[in-house]
């Protein structure tokens, strides 16, 4: 990079129709956009207009929770979608700069196939492919692949670490002779290395296994902390594990998610937020509490106080504690609780002006909580357009973000190309690293 000042990395998360549960009901959102290729062409071109490092497609290979009638999946838009590697290969052909990061599971794929797919994407796009490595936490997904229950976390993460090592062994055109606990491969990809030679690997997760996998195998971590304190702790925890693998702290970028409702005034932003919250029907809202591992409040007065009921277990999240603290402190009703949850602020959320959004991002960026952000627009494309038109120029004014693409590849954009030439050692069953 020609500039010496550290700059933000920005990803645009474009899965579904936005990160708000009612996004599809917004007048500016095409309700059928999740299967419409033209919608995604628009999103990808928008990301390039905003000089984003990458577009990111979250994914799981299932329609989740359809068998739980209490959860109003029939009112949600996260139902059907494109397969990420296919969609991004098609978008590669109609874009020039932006990185393309599909999610694919290390549990339900074979490393040879996926490496070949990702390297093909790297060739097609001229070096813009990434991979978001997931291990799959959903039982609905497991059932689509012949399993009655999930593999345990240790097994999934060990397989993913070995998967990533095999990918690293194949992607640069080398010949591999690998025999590990999960995979046995001999041979090469039969393909010239892609322009990047080394595909940036993204991952996420806060378990000890997930952080260890990130430190060992990932180039970017998609964080999900709602407060700066916990984000700083997470940042320090993941980066603190890198030395063990012979890596320096700047070899891994921390990019938390951020969902921003942006207005030219604070009131305009608040109005936008309120309008979206009003679109959450009670049936959807109560179901969201259930799926989010809150107690089932069905049958209680929606506008009465939230009763103290035992927690059902399941998904553990800092956000649940934050939400219930807020309920007690502010004496919120059930309706106010489900609105809080359905607002989608599982990650960092901001309702405000471009200056306020940029202030939050700058503080996180300069005080050890983030190296960049994954932008999660509440409604797509409208809120992504607002981010590009209002927040990006503010970040540029502050010298925090590029004013033109300087490199050609995703690694260039992320600033990974100089530091990441070393081959990663293969994890072996007996050895720790």
């Amino acid at each position: 990079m020609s500039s010496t000042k550290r700059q933000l990395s920005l990803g645009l998360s474009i899965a579904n129709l936005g990160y708000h549960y009612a996004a599809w009901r917004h007048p500016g959102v095409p309700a059928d956009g999740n299967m419409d290729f033209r919608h995604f062409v628009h999103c990808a071109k928008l990301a390039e207009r905003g000089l984003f490092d990458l577009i990111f497609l979250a994914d799981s290979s299932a329609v989740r929770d359809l068998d739980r009638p209490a959860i109003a999946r029939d009112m949600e838009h996260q139902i059907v979608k494109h397969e990420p590697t296919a969609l991004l290969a098609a978008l590669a052909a109609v874009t020039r700069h932006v990185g393309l990061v599909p999610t694919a599971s290390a549990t339900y794929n074979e490393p040879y196939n996926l490496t070949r797919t990702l390297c093909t994407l790297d060739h097609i796009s001229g070096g813009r492919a990434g991979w978001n490595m997931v291990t799959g936490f959903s039982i609905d997904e497991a059932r689509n692949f012949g399993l009655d229950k999930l593999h345990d976390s240790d097994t999934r993460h060990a397989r993913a670490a070995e998967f990533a090592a095999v990918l690293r062994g194949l992607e640069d055109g080398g010949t591999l002779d690998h025999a590990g606990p999960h995979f046995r491969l001999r041979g090469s990809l039969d393909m010239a290395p892609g322009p990047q030679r080394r595909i940036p690997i993204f991952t996420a997760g806060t378990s000890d296994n997930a952080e260890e996998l990130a430190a060992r195998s990932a180039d970017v971590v998609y964080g999900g902390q709602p407060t700066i304190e916990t984000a700083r702790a997470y940042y320090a925890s993941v980066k603190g594990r890198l030395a063990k693998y012979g890596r320096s702290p700047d070899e891994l970028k921390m990019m938390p998610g951020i969902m921003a409702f942006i207005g030219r005034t604070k009131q305009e932003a608040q109005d936008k937020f309120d309008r979206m919250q009003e679109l959450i029907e009670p049936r959807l809202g109560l179901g969201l509490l259930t799926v989010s591992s809150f107690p089932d409040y069905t049958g209680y007065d929606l506008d009465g106080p939230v009763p103290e009921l035992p927690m059902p277990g399941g998904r553990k999240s800092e956000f649940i504690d934050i939400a219930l603290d807020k309920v007690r402190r502010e004496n919120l009703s059930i309706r106010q609780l489900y609105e809080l949850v359905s607002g989608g602020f599982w990650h960092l959320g901001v309702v405000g002006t471009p200056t306020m959004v940029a202030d939050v991002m700058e503080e996180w960026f300069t005080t050890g909580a983030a190296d960049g952000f994954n932008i999660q627009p509440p409604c797509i494309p409208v809120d992504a357009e607002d981010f590009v038109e209002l927040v990006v120029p503010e970040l540029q004014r502050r010298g925090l973000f590029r004013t033109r693409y300087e490199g050609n590849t995703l690694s260039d954009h992320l600033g990974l190309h100089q530091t990441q030439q070393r081959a990663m050692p293969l994890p072996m069953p007996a050895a720790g690293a």
Partner: protein
Amino acid sequence: MSGVTSRRMTLGLALSGPGGVTKFRNMLASAQMAEGCGFDFLWLTDRPGLDPITMAAALAATTQRIGLIPSCAAPYHRPYNLARRLASIDHISRGRMGWMLQPVADAALASKFGNLPLADVATAHAVAAEFAGVVAALWDSWDDDAFIRDKASGLYFDRAKFHWLDHQGAAFKVRGPLDTARPPQGLLPLLIAGGSALAEQLAAGQGEILHGLPADLRAAQGERAVMSRRLEQAGRAPAALRMLPGILPILGRTPTALPSGPGPLPVLGTPEAIAGTLCEWFDSGAADGFIIHLPDTADAIEAFAAGVIPVLQRHGAWQPSPLGATLRDMLGLGHAPSRYAEQAAQAVA
């Protein structure tokens, strides 16, 4: 497609060359040339190098009319993953996607999947049949009119219009439903490479295209008769499977050495002579069209097409497909109704 009254020859293209597919822009040039010349589909055979399915996705965004059929090695894919990738590209291409399922992968690939079990040939064909059945059923997960998307009421889909698969077979266990809307074609045409009784049985049960390898017209007619019986046994109409023999055209004077052994049939001569052979086979009913095997260069595609296709068109056997035609349209198959819609219609009747 409605309004088609006469039989129309289908022309597919398969490309080969030394060294595999190393540059996407070469494949793009070939695909765009093939499209410009009027080929109905491009079969992306599994050559070394770039992945055919990923290339098909990129070609879907950079072509307008040509069908795209990537080869998929059944032993190394999972039905759920493949069903959603292919459905996705069918949406992107507006219904121009097909797939070729290889029951037994090339031997060279086996060493790259050493952790997976290797099946014998007969078992591999049984697994492929189950694979194709699961994929086709997953595509029917959502009815064509399942998605209401009523912004006013907040109702996104109709719970009565999706279907659990709950498949439990010898090789696969898949619950479903697919997380992709029903593909525009409903059912993507499945190409099976013939050459064995096992492959013919698979094609009769599940296929829409059989790439046959007859040695002459008489053999092609014999193959048609055999396949008609097999289709009847499988409870399918004779026209449900399109017979597209592989042809290796050799333009010009007779070369000294013809390719020998199993493979597409060499047909030599002037463009008129080659077109004459194709028309004879087509008119006799032995073939519904052909898969033309050419070297992977835009020049080779253009040379064949410029010489042969106008003769086919003058003969009335082939005509360009209209913009917006799906691959099923180009094969004369039409939109495939969902199995659940058919069951409901039968229940009413």
